[in-house]
């Protein structure tokens, strides 16, 4: 599978502070790639670099095989972006915002209705953006990013501050886009989001990559306990070794129908992050 994005030794300095330091990674086509890190880790800076809004001090980056410092109209037309602070026209209605970008992208206006329906904003199409809730603004910003059938979607904190139901709706939309072959590059500090929808993540802290891999692989890697947590129906909790030595005990409990739940002691991404940095993701 070819790469949609490639970063090699990217470093960016603001004043005397290295915001990104020697960042290297590859994003395969058609996956959901998560950039996980706390506020101030350098996530938005990295998106700006990859979309050509900012230039690195060292290293190189390629988007669809093209140097990000020399992106042309062709590459820009294949990018959809949802940035941290929307960039929507507050006084215009939902429909007028979409209609403006339909003109910019040369997309038929009939597409607007389809997108608004798919993203649940059709009923609010005549409402001014200033009157929308945060969740609706997020969805509109995403709708705009989806307008031009982009090959790569850059989403900066797409579900930040949203309620679980709206977050789930946005996740469903992203998974649907992935099925259509879109590569999605999202930043988040929500470890649940990263674990549930991302195929591959990198953990970023203070401008450095501190870990990368599939979320399940990272969780497994930091499973130092490697035990099974068994809860019995009578409320008793047991910690058993996660190997063949526990097989007979578990078999016995199962045969007697005593088991309420079995969990592995695999950590979450957040636990792994805390282990690596000593700090949480919020």
């Amino acid at each position, binding site marked *: 599978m070819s790469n949609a994005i490639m970063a090699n030794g990217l470093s960016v300095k603001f004043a005397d502070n290295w915001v990104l330091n020697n960042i290297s990674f590859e994003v395969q086509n058609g996956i959901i790639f998560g950039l996980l890190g706390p506020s101030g880790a350098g996530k938005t800076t990295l998106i700006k670099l990859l979309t*050509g809004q900012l230039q690195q001090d060292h290293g190189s980056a390629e988007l669809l095989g093209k140097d990000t410092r020399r992106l042309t*109209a062709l590459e820009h037309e294949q*990018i959809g972006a949802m*940035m941290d602070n929307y*960039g929507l026209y*507050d*006084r*215009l209605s939902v429909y007028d915002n979409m209609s403006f970008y339909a*003109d910019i992208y040369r997309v038929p206006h009939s597409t607007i209705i389809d997108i608004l329906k798919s993203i649940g904003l059709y009923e609010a199409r005549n409402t001014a953006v200033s009157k929308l809730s945060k969740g609706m603004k997020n969805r509109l910003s995403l709708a705009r990013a989806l307008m031009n059938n982009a090959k790569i979607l850059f989403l900066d904190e797409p579900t930040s501050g949203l309620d679980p139901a709206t977050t789930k709706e946005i996740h469903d939309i992203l998974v649907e886009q992935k099925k259509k072959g879109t590569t999605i590059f999202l930043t988040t500090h929500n470890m649940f989001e990263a674990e549930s929808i991302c195929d591959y993540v990198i953990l970023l802290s203070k401008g450095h990559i501190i870990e990368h891999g599939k979320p399940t692989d990272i969780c497994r890697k930091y499973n130092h306990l490697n035990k099974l947590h068994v809860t019995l129906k009578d409320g008793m909790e047991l910690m058993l070794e996660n190997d063949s030595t526990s097989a007979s005990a578990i078999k016995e409990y199962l045969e007697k129908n005593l088991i309420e739940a079995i969990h592995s002691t695999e950590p979450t991404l957040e636990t792994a992050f805390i282990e690596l940095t000593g700090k949480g993701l919020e």
Partner: protein
Amino acid sequence: MNNIVAIFKKQLKDTLRNKTVLIQFVMFPIMTLITNNAIKIQEMPENFFVILFATMYIGMAPLTSIASIISEEKEKNTLRVLIMSNVKPHEYLLGIGSYVWFACMLGGLVICTVGGYDLQTSIAFMGIIAIGVLTSLLIGAIIGICSKTQMMATSITVPVMMIFSFVPMLSLFNSTIEKIARVIYSEQISRMLNQINSLQLNVENIGVIGLNILIAAILFIFIFKKCKLS
């Protein structure tokens, strides 16, 4: 061209809901209409209020509105998203600039109509307005580009606008101000409008306005390269 038209259309819809910018376009034409019909003073020069307000309109409306529009787009991040969506900075500026120019020309047409000029004089009047609006647009765009927020743009726009808008009026009452005011384009616009019925362009008119446009254009290019749009 497609992007320029899209930006023009967007701005038209936005202005209808943006009282701050809308008032810039309609305030002076309405004031001209009212004062020209309501105030009659003996020995007052012909079309005194028409020329006075036309000059103030040129020095104020294009300058404040374009600075406000650009700085707001920068502050609210809409400009960054636009540039990422493959809109070139020059397309954006042409779209916004042509919209403000067109809107100001409509206002100018109202003022000209109130003046009751004949066709030939009206064409000359509108020509002078067009040049004045263009110069103010360049200055307003410079302020908009170098301002990160609308508040910052306003704090720069107000004194600049006061100079270009009010000095030609003050020069009517003070000879020292009149001598100093000769070097600014709005004063020359005011003089040309005052001679509109027997308009003969002189070296001073053309030279000062040309020099003002040249300085504004050089500053515009410098600021555009230094500050960028997004």
